[in-house]
């Protein structure tokens, strides 16, 4: 009885959401061009797009397109600046807490299908630039359905325990032994790009198995496999960095057939919007992984 009570208390303590406080947010004037670039690098639109049936311009991240996951069907929220159904009323602190701590505006844990586990590594200024860019988009009224997850409030609280094991809010650290481009690529891949979320297999506890970093595994939506993105040249997938950059920019338009299936087509569409220097940086970093 006592043990059970202690166990419950321990669970309650480790699972409690711990949002940042306002002094963790620097004063920052958003760089909108950088925000737009990182919006694409972060793949926001891939999940937050509206359904065709909503009649909303599908270029806007008005949310509501169902995302099937092992725990149920999720409805990514509207992140246009509509004050009622979007994020128009969110403060910088609200936004950073969601993106980098996985805590919603109402203070509860967010389901990590939203890849805050990767976004946590980003520079906070980059996160604020994305918020600045989102604020420039047309506000769309679109109330999205609630997630269809069994016992959602309990799952949300339980996520606190999962985060205690599997979530590290440490920022990306540059490797001074590597080039500036390599470090930029590593930042884009591991922070905003969140490649790891699908290309690294998960352990039994659903945390990334970093001993098999980017080595591929079962598809998170349960159908097929996600390829390894290590040793891409050695395995004959790409000739060199320039070849990989062309694949990012063109996908199957130049016959790079690995750039579609399983959601990669949407990723490639986002990558195609990035400046060539960033794509070269990503290629340099990825091709260094043997």
């Amino acid at each position, binding site marked *: 009885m006592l043990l059970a009570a202690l166990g419950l208390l321990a669970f309650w303590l480790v699972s409690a959401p711990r949002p940042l406080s306002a002094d963790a947010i620097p004063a920052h004037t958003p760089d909108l061009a950088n925000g737009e670039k990182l919006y694409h690098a972060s793949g926001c639109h891939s999940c937050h797009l509206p359904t065709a049936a909503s009649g909303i311009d599908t270029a806007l991240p008005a949310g509501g397109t169902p995302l099937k996951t092992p725990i149920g069907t999720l409805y990514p929220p509207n992140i246009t600046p509509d004050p009622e159904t979007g994020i128009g009323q969110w403060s910088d602190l609200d936004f950073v807490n969601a993106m980098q701590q996985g805590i919603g505006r109402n203070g509860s844990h967010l389901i990590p299908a939203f890849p805050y586990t990767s976004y946590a590594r980003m520079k906070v200024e980059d996160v604020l630039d994305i918020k600045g860019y989102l604020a420039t988009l047309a506000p769309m009224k679109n109330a999205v359905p609630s997630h269809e997850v069994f016992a959602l409030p309990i799952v949300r609280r339980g996520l606190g325990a999962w985060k205690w094991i599997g979530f590290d809010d440490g920022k990306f650290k540059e490797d001074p032994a590597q080039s500036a481009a390599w470090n930029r690529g590593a930042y884009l891949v591991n922070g905003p790009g969140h490649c790891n979320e699908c290309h690294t297999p998960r352990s039994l506890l659903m945390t990334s198995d970093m001993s098999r970093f980017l080595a*591929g595994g079962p*598809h998170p939506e349960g*159908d*097929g*496999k*996600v*390829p*390894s993105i290590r040793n891409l040249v050695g395995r004959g997938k790409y000739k060199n960095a320039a070849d990989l950059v*062309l694949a990012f920019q*063109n*996908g*199957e*338009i*130049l*016959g790079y*057939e690995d*750039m*579609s*299936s*399983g*959601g*990669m*087509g*949407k990723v*490639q569409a986002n990558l195609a919007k990035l400046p060539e220097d960033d794509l070269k940086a990503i290629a340099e970093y990825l091709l260094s992984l043997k």
Partner: protein
Amino acid sequence: MFERVKTVIAASSLGLVVMATAALAGPADDAIKARQACMKAHGGVMAVAVPVMKGEKPFDAAALKAAHDKEDAACAGWDGFWAENTMQGETAETWAKPEIWADMAGFQAAGGAWYEADQKLRAATDEASFKATFPAVGKGCQDCHEKFRRPKG
């Protein structure tokens, strides 16, 4: 004598294995192999087209025509490749997603969009018209793969 018994036993078990394998392969395997041969022929067109798009080789109408002819031959039975009972092979592995059969109208629309783009490509007579029409064909491949092909790993 004993050696002969052993040989008979070995031969008949081998025969059983062969028969069992033959019994396992079936009509779905044939359809899967046929559509994979068709996809491979699409790849043959890509192999001719992409170096031209990248500027590595000049436009070669004859080579493109040859690849298209192979594509026509391999894909002629397309409409018969996708019967309901070919969702999974008896022994052959397929990357076709169940969404093809859940949304046959969507699948046919995606195939139709590709076909239309491909018809324009086939009308191309020189490098300029080829380069203008080819991207829509690649886009057609991507749009269909994205929705209807399982990731291969």
